[in-house]
């Protein structure tokens, strides 16, 4: 397995100004993702973090064009540049086109939260992985099975040859997730999208799966787009982190930088609302974010966080804040960072 050399000039994946709307016959369109800008470098892990309904899963599915029928990418581009190849705008491809199918599962693959509902219950895991390999590569069934067995072995499934003949329900949650990962790796993708892959698992199993993903990433040199709601998991696994709130990416940057000095009020508030691993004497009362996440229908024109932000002032409800560079590769969208230099100190 030779690690791909990262392209210096172009990022592996660049999502520019993407908007995703869901239509419904009896209601106005709901804009689930309003404006997402993300950059993912080859070989790196980008964590997309946010609370339920912020649009993180929708964004991830859009990259693979796995959105529901009534969803459409109404604006923006999803630029994918596999090493040594031309850039493709995934957003402009038809989701069932040949070129999209050549990318899906082959160059970009995905693992899901609940392996039980994303694996077929009536096929053995070996058959499911064989199918995936033969779909993308010209291999005979026997050769495909050999590859499957070696993949199952690499993801740490004991007795891989025998386990290939088992059905998903015969495996534990941890083993099922490993089988899912083996399938995603079958065609050595450039990008692996992981949508809450450890959320349904116990904490010791979660640790094993995170360690496995880190190891496989080193072996294969692939990039990861990792969706999670758990800041602890972000701190474990991310190189970069992007924080989403109600369809907007409000902040993106290096994980150490964002945890050390978060600049968007939402990121700051999120970090203050999780209990820290501190002794009683150093423990501080949690400061929760007031109120609840509004529905996408009630989102203000301007900054989505306005209704819950402790710093909100005149331009916030009406004007969308610009992307502001606040450090090396660290951007945030907040009016306090641009408009009002005297108040910018509040966020420093």
């Amino acid at each position: 397995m030779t690690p791909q050399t990262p392209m210096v000039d172009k990022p592996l994946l660049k999502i520019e100004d993407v908007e995703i709307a869901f239509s419904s016959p009896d209601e106005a369109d709901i804009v689930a993702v309003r404006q997402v800008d993300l950059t993912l470098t080859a070989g790196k892990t980008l964590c997309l973090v946010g609370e339920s309904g912020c649009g993180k899963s929708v964004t991830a599915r859009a990259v693979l064009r796995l959105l529901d029928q009534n969803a459409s990418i109404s604006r923006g581009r999803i630029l994918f540049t596999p090493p040594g190849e031309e850039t493709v705008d995934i957003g402009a491809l038809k989701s069932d086109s040949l070129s999209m199918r050549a990318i899906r599962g082959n160059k970009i693959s995905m693992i899901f939260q609940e392996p039980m509902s994303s694996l077929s219950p009536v096929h053995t895991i070996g058959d499911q992985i064989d199918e995936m390999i033969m779909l993308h590569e010209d291999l005979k069934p026997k050769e495909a099975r050999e590859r499957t067995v070696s993949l199952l072995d690499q993801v740490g499934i004991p007795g891989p040859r025998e386990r290939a003949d088992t059905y998903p329900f015969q495996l534990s949650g941890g083993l099922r997730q490993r089988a899912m990962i083996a399938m995603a790796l079958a065609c050595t993708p450039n990008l692996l999208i992981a949508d809450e892959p450890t959320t349904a698992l116990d904490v010791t199993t979660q640790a094993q799966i995170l360690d496995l993903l880190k190891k496989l990433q080193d072996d294969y040199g692939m990039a990861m787009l990792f969706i999670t709601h758990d800041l602890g998991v972000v701190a474990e696994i991310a190189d970069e982190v992007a924080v989403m709130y109600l369809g907007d990416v409000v902040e993106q940057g290096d994980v150490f930088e964002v945890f050390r000095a978060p600049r968007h009020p939402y990121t700051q508030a999120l970090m203050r609302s999780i209990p820290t691993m501190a002794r009683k004497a150093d423990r501080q009362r949690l400061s929760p974010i007031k109120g609840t996440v509004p529905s996408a229908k009630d989102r203000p024109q301007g900054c989505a966080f306005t209704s819950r932000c402790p710093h909100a002032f005149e331009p916030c409800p009406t004007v969308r804040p610009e992307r502001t560079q606040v450090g090396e590769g660290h951007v945030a969208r907040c009016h306090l960072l641009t408009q009002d230099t005297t108040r910018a100190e509040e966020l420093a």
Partner: protein
Amino acid sequence: MSALLSVENLSKTFTIRSGLVGPLRTLDALSDVSLSVAPGETLAIVGESGCGKTTLGRCIVKAMPVTAGKVTYRPPDHAPVEITALDNRAMKPWRRDIRMIFQDPMSSLNPNMRVFDIVAEPLRVHKVARGRELENRVADVLSRVGISPDAMGRYPHAFSGGQRQRIGIARALVLEPKLVIADEAVSALDVSIQAQVLNLLEDLKSEFGLTYIFVSHDLGVVNYIADRVVVMYLGHVVENAPTESLFERPRHPYTEVLLEALPIADPTRRNRREKAVRGEIPYLGNRPTGCPFHTRCRHAQDRCRSEKPALRKVGQAEVACHFAESLELKGAYEPASVTPSTRTLA
């Protein structure tokens, strides 16, 4: 100080049938569990799925009969009551004192009942209040948990997850209980809402002088809220210690593994795991002989495979491990020289 509630040698065995016509088999969900909770204390029960933490909570509120052992409740102004020996009728008055909050606020509130009726039901069942007084008490408890009494004519679907959890809390508190068992009460909530509910639980505790048994799998939350922690594995108590001592210096190898596996929201503390986490939780019906944890334990020796360790006092903790005195186990806090307070968030 005598305990408010104590559990002695509690066991719970479920009988299951494999398949439609298969033989009957037994599963020991709880084996010989003993613990006690002092008045005003928050006791956390932690462990992974299948460890028996939920079953234990349900046995304490007598939502299911126990197989062996006893649960004793000591009301402040009454002689001790052995809950496990009571029939349902005799238990009823004590149900006012021991209440439960459930994990999923979606399925624990009846969708066909108005919020007012949901919260008023315990008052009606126990004939505590009626008419105007009933209304006042419901409105009062709802406003204490942060739900506007104007909204009490609505149905649960009209509320968000966090608000529904507050309604569940109001229902538990309306009878002014002494002991509240919270079963994964914040696990289904988003972090910002989770923080609101945790703060609320702390405030209500001091306001009403409550005692909590807090069942959770989230050690971060447990470190924040609990005074003492009971760690369970496959139906056994493996460690019972004051929170700070448990997180500083765990005494049982399983506790160490749990603390190592816990993702801490601080990237400078990543890669704390020096060794990989071994194996998976065995199926309950296939529990190892000897120490239940020996199949995954880094320190296991021959003795662990054959002889089951009893819970015994080591330092501030009660531990079920043959080698608890000699093992040097790693905690989850940063070393004391680098105090975490140097890490400020903005």
